């Protein structure tokens, strides 16, 4: 089976190059398995991974141009397998990119805004069951950045007009969170809620299968509209 990997060391290379490898294929072979096999038995490739199960986000990259998590993406025995770094992020080396631009932002967004500490009585109090069904899936966002690399708005305009799906999911997390006392609707609008085209590509590439991105954007937009925060041209 053939696998082509983009190699690039920005400190010494003028531009990326591509190396092709011929490796043995086995049933259900993941892209991560292919890369480890090449790195172990042929030559070094700079790539990163940790959990082998879509929750750490460290093996985000592209296969044939599509952003993916290498640990849960299969390679094609007879087809082409062109592997590159995650689109839209600065390349450190080969398949390693710098994602601090989104991870730092998401950490700040997820800081729960509260005047006073939560009490045990609040934690154990009943909540609206629909809220629970909407919020719980968002916990599984791995902040991998696959949706950012796939988002046409982010790729065309950067993250200034639209923070991108990862950041918006974090805002939605605190929007649904019954313990958060901040105004997350304003935050969503500020961060490009209405700039998102609702194309749904983020939902197609996301491997946290329980997250329903489009339904989440819909809830945020309804709340924004109710608060009088819908632009006239939207």
């Amino acid at each position: 089976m053939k696998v082509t990997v983009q190699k690039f060391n920005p400190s010494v290379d003028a531009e990326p190059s591509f190396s092709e490898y011929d490796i043995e294929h086995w049933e259900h072979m993941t892209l991560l398995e292919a890369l480890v096999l090449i790195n172990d038995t042929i030559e070094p490739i700079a790539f990163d991974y940790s959990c082998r199960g879509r929750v750490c986000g460290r093996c985000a990259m592209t296969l044939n141009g599509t952003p993916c998590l290498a640990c849960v993406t299969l390679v094609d025995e007879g087809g082409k397998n062109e592997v590159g770094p995650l689109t839209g992020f600065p390349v450190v080396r080969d398949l390693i990119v710098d994602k601090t631009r989104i991870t730092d932002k998401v950490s700040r967004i997820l800081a729960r805004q509260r005047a006073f500490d939560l009490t045990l009585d609040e934690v154990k109090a009943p909540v609206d069951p629909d809220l629970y069904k909407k919020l719980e899936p968002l916990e599984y966002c791995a902040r991998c950045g696959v949706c950012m690399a796939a988002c046409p708005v982010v790729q065309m305009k950067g993250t200034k007009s639209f923070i991108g799906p990862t950041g918006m999911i974090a805002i939605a997390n605190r929007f649904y969170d019954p313990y958060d006392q901040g105004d997350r609707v304003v935050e969503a609008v500020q961060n490009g809620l209405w700039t998102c085209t609702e194309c749904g590509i983020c939902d197609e590439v996301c491997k946290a299968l329980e997250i329903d991105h489009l339904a989440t954007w819909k809830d945020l937009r309804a709340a924004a509209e109710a608060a009088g925060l819908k632009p006239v041209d939207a």
Partner: protein
Amino acid sequence: MDSERSTTRTEGTGISRRAFLGGSAVAFGTIMLSGALGTATGCSTGGGAAGGSGSSGAENASATAAFELYDTEILIIGGGLAGSHAALQAHKQGKDVAVVEKGPFHFGGACGYNWCNWVNFIQTDTPWDQSEDFVLNELTNKKIAKATHEAFTVEERNLLLRYAQEGNNLFVRDEDGTFAPGLDMPGYPLFGTFNGFPRYFTDSVERTGARIFDHTMITDVIIEDGACIGAVGLHIPTGVVRVFRAKATISCTGASSWIYGWNTVAPTSINSPDNTGDVDAAAYRRGAALQDSEFFQFDLISMYPMGLAATFVGGIGADNLCCEYICDANDTYFFRGMDYSTLDRITFTRTIAKAIHDGGGSPNGGVYVDFSNPEAFAAMGEVYRRNVELWREVFGIDVASTKLECALEAYEHGGNPRVDENLMVEGMPGLFCSRGGGVYGAQGGSSVNVAYRDGSYAMMKAIEYAEGEGAKRPASFAFDAIEEEINRLHELRLRQGGGKRPQEVTRMIQKAAYQACQPTRETEAMQQAVDELARIRSEELPNMTLGDATLTYNTDWKAAIEACNLLDIAEASSRAALMREESRGHSYRPEYPEENPGAWTCNIVARNVDGAMQLETVPVVELD
């Protein structure tokens, strides 16, 4: 490496000793690599001189090595559960800390996976010797058990509230939105619930303003007059060595289960590739004793597809909730009829180990879980259940149609530097371990519920030390040790011994350690493994050949440093496992099928004696 002792500091471009000591924030310096390294690069401009450009290997032509220096009051190594709680404790006490994390994006250890775990909540306070912590056993250091329990109020030990206050959302609710604990038995001191997401703790640490240095692996601890005054690490993206000086240092690096086997992308362990025992091995080389290395903790996780083998965040497995559906290769459901409510993990593991040994093993040395019964799905934890849909979508596998081959996966390892009741490394003041040797005894490692507590406790004691005995440190600075370590690292980077690449050497170490440290421990196989590790040390390690000599994110370099650490940990673990001639903890030795309290109520420690590892038994620490 004796020929490379000729290291000198550069004049002019190098940093002066005075500036070095005066730097309170950050200083930069360069160290001249030894002559041997200057000429070993293969593309040097000659004579070991600095510079060189134009070729694709320009980076390696430099014969000087840059380093950065950081000062902090307390250094935390590892940003996972224990590390994040150490940082939060420091924030509570108003202390300046720096957190060094091996993983990227600030996330590390158990907080580097966005998984959900079980969260205990204490309903009734208990004395320390009836503790809710599940780590108290015959081999636990009783002074530590008492001190770590009694340092906190019952409110402080209640993890549920900690999770909620640091950002976790709703845990588990029923159809009506009512809080629904998964364990709430009358008269039992605990209740517990699922859906605690530990990654929120790292977000909290970021908010405290702690300085976080991620992508940085610690390679050495700095010793001054017998005390630890910080650590040396490598920033992987740039290849720059970072020197961290601190009045007290806390290691929160977790288990070293990366030694345990290999299945295409990972050992037979959920642990992260970061779990290579870097600090444990560094402390061992500098004189700390590694203790309780023969003990691991196991659970039962799927082995197929191989890319997801042994990982419970992507795999499917059974714990004691599912034991009714576990069977061996002969279709014997060997747990049926047992009282599951009292089934502890140790009995669980050893029952499976014995079934495998008695001829019921699957092709990959595991057993089966029969998920064709819908009730098995209902019993399975959410962390597995969410993977059923993933398997269907990605791999086209219908879990419900088959018996799933599962193996005993080492999710924890007990080996760590031996500590006293302040969690300070014995014989190495200034270095604290949130999970030191003696904390877990035969349990074989931590659990989520004590990692946070021990991280907080280590910080409380580290602050006391930093304000007392450690306040005057560092008094002078041991430049020579820094130079020695920088040279060791660069010698590894440039090693061209004509032998195997570090990844291949690592696979050999992992294979041997797996053979010696399995729950079923056959003496002959263990002896072979110990011999193989000795051979790897004498024949493979010195001859390693790296496929890359550059500085920027050099994965071969990182693997070579890790191979040295993994070998130390694997040797300590395998030899201690062989030495302990009984069945105890999660392990079952067919030749010694019973626990032997008369002979083996003791801990095993491994010490570095003039470069060779020596094992000995020490008495269990009891209360005075």
